[in-house]
């Protein structure tokens, strides 16, 4: 160690230097306070032995100057003093000294104190080093959180839906949420909501949120049921996340007419169903394990289905609400929570949030809090994206297909043909109807035409099965015959339509004898269906040809 010895008496300095150098330290000497401060700044001193009474500048003043110069760094200063009154000794420490030694100096005590202070200095340096490292790591974490937040927000972007059925409150405890709230619309016009609470906050939750939101939106676009969504989410979380990470979740679906509510809940606090006055109707318990724990073959999918009345409301929330704490560490709890749903407050959503916020104001929020209110009424969604502009004008086209027995055996050509109609917005939204029409025409041509099957078979349930068995057999042994399909898009000033013509190699039928089916008839609906969907349905060539026209508006 490099030690600065400060004393105005040369004999004292020499004695100390001799002892210290003997112990392997190097020594710098100063004869008064001012010189001590100068020398301290010039050389890299590890420890100071400071006399108190000196000319020019005394030990107290020099110590204050050195400590001020040091700032956060720590270099021990030990006073050497002949003073023995308590007040003087106390002053040594109060102005920044670290220790004192009484004169005359005892060599062994001096050595012990130097050793002790050297240890403290080492610890101090270690602490400073670690502090710097921590600060750096902290900056890094903050940066990563910002990145994760961006990713998380993007994953949620598709969920920003303006929907009159939903109110939500999200209040994250960490930089961002361990709670995930996604909303989506089903192809049948229903509404989906997913509320998930990941174990852990921040980054881990964001990592889980990405596969979760992707899977949710994929499944909801296909119109999957809540239990299928739950299963898909469970599968993806089990695959993506480490074993100790999982997500409690509630998945709700409200049918388009707002009359049927399906719920799948795993590991969530109970959901609350109220009437239109906010009065409790039912408390719905979670009956499943959180997502991301069970393997696919162990997964339980049974949903909870509720027939709801108009104006009923469902409240879903994460455990941040019942587990909110007041200043004394007491939990908010379900009793306090359920009090908001007695019908005395028409708007439990607002009163509950206000109450929890007030309750936990002493302690500060420790967990994410999310509350979702879903009102059971016909689903109202205003589309976020504006309709695209005027689509480009259509070019007329024609498409002809001749299907041989081999091709007829290889399955229905209808999906492929419908795909060929293209993706123009004129056509796109009619594809489902066009699919139905073409499927009907093709089935008739194949079954009644080429295969010569009679609808009479379909009179009974057994006959119905028989019909389709015969269909299989005849198709398998078919050597001869064809179905020709011609599709065309025609457009003139007044209208745009898809024309379909189907010819078959069969015997034809007497189309003048066709009559609408009775309500109970399990057959003969095809032609009526065609007539309703199409602008024109016309049989010719003895019933082996049919022409239909479908208007695209």
């Amino acid at each position: 160690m490099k030690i600065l010895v400060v004393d105005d008496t040369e004999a004292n300095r020499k004695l100390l230097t001799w002892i210290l150098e003997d112990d392997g330290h190097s020594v710098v000497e100063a004869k008064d306070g001012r010189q001590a401060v100068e020398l301290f700044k010039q050389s890299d001193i590890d420890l100071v032995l400071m006399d108190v009474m000196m000319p020019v500048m005394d030990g107290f003043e020099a110590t204050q100057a050195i400590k001020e110069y040091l700032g956060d760094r720590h270099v021990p200063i030990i006073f050497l003093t002949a003073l023995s009154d308590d007040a003087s000794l106390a002053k040594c420490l109060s102005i920044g000294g670290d220790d004192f030694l009484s004169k005359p100096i005892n060599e062994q005590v001096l050595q012990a104190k130097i050793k002790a202070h050297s240890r403290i200095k080492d610890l101090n340096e270690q602490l400073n080093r670690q502090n710097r490292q921590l600060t750096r790591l902290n900056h890094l974490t903050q940066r990563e959180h910002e990145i994760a937040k961006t990713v998380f927000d993007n994953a949620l972007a598709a969920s920003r839906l303006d929907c009159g059925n939903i109110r939500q409150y999200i209040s994250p405890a960490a930089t961002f949420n361990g709670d995930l709230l996604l909303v989506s619309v089903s192809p049948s016009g229903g509404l989906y909501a997913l509320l998930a609470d990941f174990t852990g906050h921040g980054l881990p939750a964001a990592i889980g949120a990405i596969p979760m939101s992707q899977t949710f939106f994929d499944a909801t676009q296909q119109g999957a049921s809540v239990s299928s969504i739950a299963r898909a989410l469970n599968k993806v979380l089990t695959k993506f996340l480490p074993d100790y990470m999982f997500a409690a979740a509630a998945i709700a679906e409200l049918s388009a007419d707002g009359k049927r509510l399906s719920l799948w809940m795993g590991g969530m606090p109970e959901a609350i169903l109220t009437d239109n006055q906010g009065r409790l109707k039912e408390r719905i318990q979670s009956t499943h394990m959180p997502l991301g724990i069970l393997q696919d073959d162990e997964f339980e999918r049974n949903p909870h289905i509720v027939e709801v009345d108009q104006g009923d409301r469902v409240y879903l929330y994460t455990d941040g609400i019942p587990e909110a704490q007041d200043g004394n560490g007491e939990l908010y709890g379900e009793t306090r929570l359920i009090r908001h749903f007695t019908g005395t407050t028409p708007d439990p959503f607002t009163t509950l949030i206000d109450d929890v916020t007030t309750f936990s104001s002493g302690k500060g929020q420790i967990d994410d809090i999310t509350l979702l209110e879903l009102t059971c009424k016909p689903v109202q969604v205003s589309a976020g994206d504006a309709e695209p502009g005027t689509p480009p004008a259509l070019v007329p086209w024609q498409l002809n297909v001749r299907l041989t027995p081999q091709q007829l055996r290889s399955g229905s050509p209808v999906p492929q043909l419908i795909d060929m109609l293209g993706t123009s917005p004129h056509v796109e939204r009619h594809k489902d109807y066009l699919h139905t029409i073409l499927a009907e025409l093709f089935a008739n041509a194949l079954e009644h035409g080429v295969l010569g099957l009679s609808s009479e078979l379909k009179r009974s349930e057994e006959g119905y099965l028989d019909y389709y068995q015969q269909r299989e057999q005849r198709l398998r042994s078919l050597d001869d015959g064809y179905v020709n399909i011609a599709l065309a898009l025609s457009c003139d000033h007044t209208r745009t339509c898809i024309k379909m013509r189907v010819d078959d190699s069969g015997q034809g039928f007497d189309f003048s004898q066709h009559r609408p089916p009775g309500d109970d008839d399990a057959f003969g609906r095809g032609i009526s269906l065609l007539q309703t969907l199409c602008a024109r349905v016309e049989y010719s060539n003895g019933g082996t040809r049919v022409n239909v026209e479908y208007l695209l508006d």
Partner: protein
Amino acid sequence: MPVESALSSDGKNLTISISGRFDFEIVQEFRNAYAEHKNVNYIIDMRATEHMDSSALGMLLNMRKSLGDSAKISIINCRPQIKKILTISRFDKKFSLE
């Protein structure tokens, strides 16, 4: 599986879900789905049904015949185009359409 059936936890509701195309290809599976359960509420969930043709209409009517007029059969979550087919075939007389 294009046809999946699930009994609710209280054993009162049988939900039969049909995904993809509802046509003669699934005639046997569809029949099995309801034939095994008696005296329950039958719910046909069409949320994932993309297309249906007249053979599917026949299959639904066969179901009605086989279970009798008193059986409660609901058809739920239809996409607009499927709902239209059911409506123009006047299926609302025989089934509850939601």
